[in-house]
């Protein structure tokens, strides 16, 4: 093989590699600094691993005596999560698109993103109390609190899916003279559909599995039962409840996979 005949400048742009080197350095420093704060001490973990086994053994055998109650509360949680999630999807789609840097100009997407940040940051407890004073204790207040928190999360995830689409098809739609909204509906949405579905079902699932906020406002739900079982040191019952939740989550996960395959 001969040497290269053309004499072109082949230096890799140094700016980028220097920047990324700096970035990694900073990251390592943060890691080391956090090692202190988190009091990391992996050796401990092995030393007393026996305790863990002993503690975990308390969870067996699961105690299904009250399974009827668990199932009932599971269903209530699911019902509340359904509406909390559906409302959040309805609000999250437009808000997500308005937070996407590749669809709207920065003076729209930045304020909307900050608003979504706030929705996510504000503790569900606060939202729950806010709605309790308006609609009273009960599932409805829990649903509304779930709705606001979930909207913040979905809008963010939706937006980041939109930001990583292939711009080609959108341009294809744009070139026909379509309006901005039409570009989104025909060029963006079909591309992000599978991801969006997985986000929605992920949030639905996480609403189903914890939904502590729902318990706080007196709506019951499986999360509260679990919490009480744990606090009451009823580990056999806790294990039973956990198994029910695991089954519910697995079913939702499998539905999610099916649904997405339908759209991919």
């Amino acid at each position, binding site marked *: 093989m001969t040497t290269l005949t053309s004499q072109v400048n082949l230096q890799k742009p140094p700016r980028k590699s220097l920047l990324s080197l700096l970035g990694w350095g900073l990251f390592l420093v943060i890691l080391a600094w956090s090692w202190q704060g988190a009091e990391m001490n992996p050796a401990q973990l092995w030393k007393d691993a026996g305790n863990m086994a002993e*503690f975990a053994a308390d969870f067996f055998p699961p105690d299904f005596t009250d399974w009827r109650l668990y199932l009932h509360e599971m269903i209530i949680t699911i019902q509340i999560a359904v509406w909390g999630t559906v409302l959040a999807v309805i609000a999250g789609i437009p808000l997500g698109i308005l937070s996407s840097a590749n669809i709207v100009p920065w003076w729209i997407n930045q304020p909307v993103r900050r608003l979504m940040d706030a929705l996510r940051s504000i503790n569900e407890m606060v939202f729950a109390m806010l709605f309790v004073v308006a609609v009273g*204790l009960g599932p409805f207040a829990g649903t509304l609190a779930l709705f606001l928190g979930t909207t913040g999360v979905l809008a963010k995830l939706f937006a980041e899916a939109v930001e990583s689409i292939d711009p080609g098809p959108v341009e294809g739609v744009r070139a026909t003279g379509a309006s901005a909204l039409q570009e989104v509906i025909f060029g963006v949405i079909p591309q992000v559909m599978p991801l969006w579905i997985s986000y929605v079902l992920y949030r639905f699932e996480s609403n189903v599995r914890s939904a502590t906020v729902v318990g*706080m406002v007196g709506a019951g739900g499986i999360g509260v039962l679990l919490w009480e079982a744990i606090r009451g040191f009823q580990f056999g019952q806790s294990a039973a409840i956990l198994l029910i939740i695991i089954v519910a989550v697995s079913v939702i996960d499998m539905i999610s996979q099916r649904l997405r395959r339908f759209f991919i």
Partner: protein
Amino acid sequence: QDKQEINFGIISTESSQNLRQLWDPFLADMSKKTGYEIKAFFAPDYAGIIQGMRFDKVDIAWYGNKSAMEAVDRANGEVIYQTVDKDGKPGYWSLLIAHKDSPINNVEDMIKNAKNLNFGNGDPNSTSGFLVPGYYVFAQNNLDPNKIFKRTVNANHEINALSVANKQVDVATNNTESLDRLKVSNPEKAAQIKEIWRSPLIASDPIVWRKNLPEEVKTKVTEFFDTYGDKPEELAVLNGLSWAKFKPSSNDQLLPIRQLELFKQRNQVAADGKLSEADKQAQLKKLDEDLEKLAASLKALEAKQS
């Protein structure tokens, strides 16, 4: 091996919160006087602290009555001291509250109108929000709060108080400490609330250690709790936590709570439709025996104290 440090678990209890700004000077003094490094863990819930105590990861803890009972039963703990209110109150009380404009003024009114009332019950694990009113107001009158009211919901003290003030529920459980906090931070809301029932006294919070602490540590810790608060600057620290000097105590402090717990269990068993009659009777018999034993020891205790 030599113990260098003491792990001190602090949870929010029914009657107080774990505001760490207030705890810091106390912990510093404790370290100075015992010579051990005090590692404090502030947790909003007791489950982790009790498991920690069970596996010797927590040495001393400040609990509420209910959680102290669990620690004694499950984590090899022992009640050694009791906090004392700085104003001399011996403990706190569980309450039923209603809106000040409500026609309901006492338990009889409430029971009479129960069909039309929304009731805000407490968290089922709460002593003052659930256990105490459940025993004195409902169980002793042979009533089930889940059945007699138009609607019953469970929430924590804070949400219950606000709901009553906003007329979202008609009657709710609460306790004196939570209501006092509301009076300080939000007097207008607190002014909307009236008390319609007050429970017998609930003992103030116990301090628990694990029984298998080395003797040497036990000695030093006892010495500290015995003497802390003798000096005015120490008392000031305790006052910051709303306390006066500690008072020695023992597991016996928990007997009334045990009684309530057992009674709750008895009601549950009695109401359980799934148990066979024979099983049910056997269990009830056992529970009744336990209750009797408890009552006897309580009597003995009162006799000793008086």
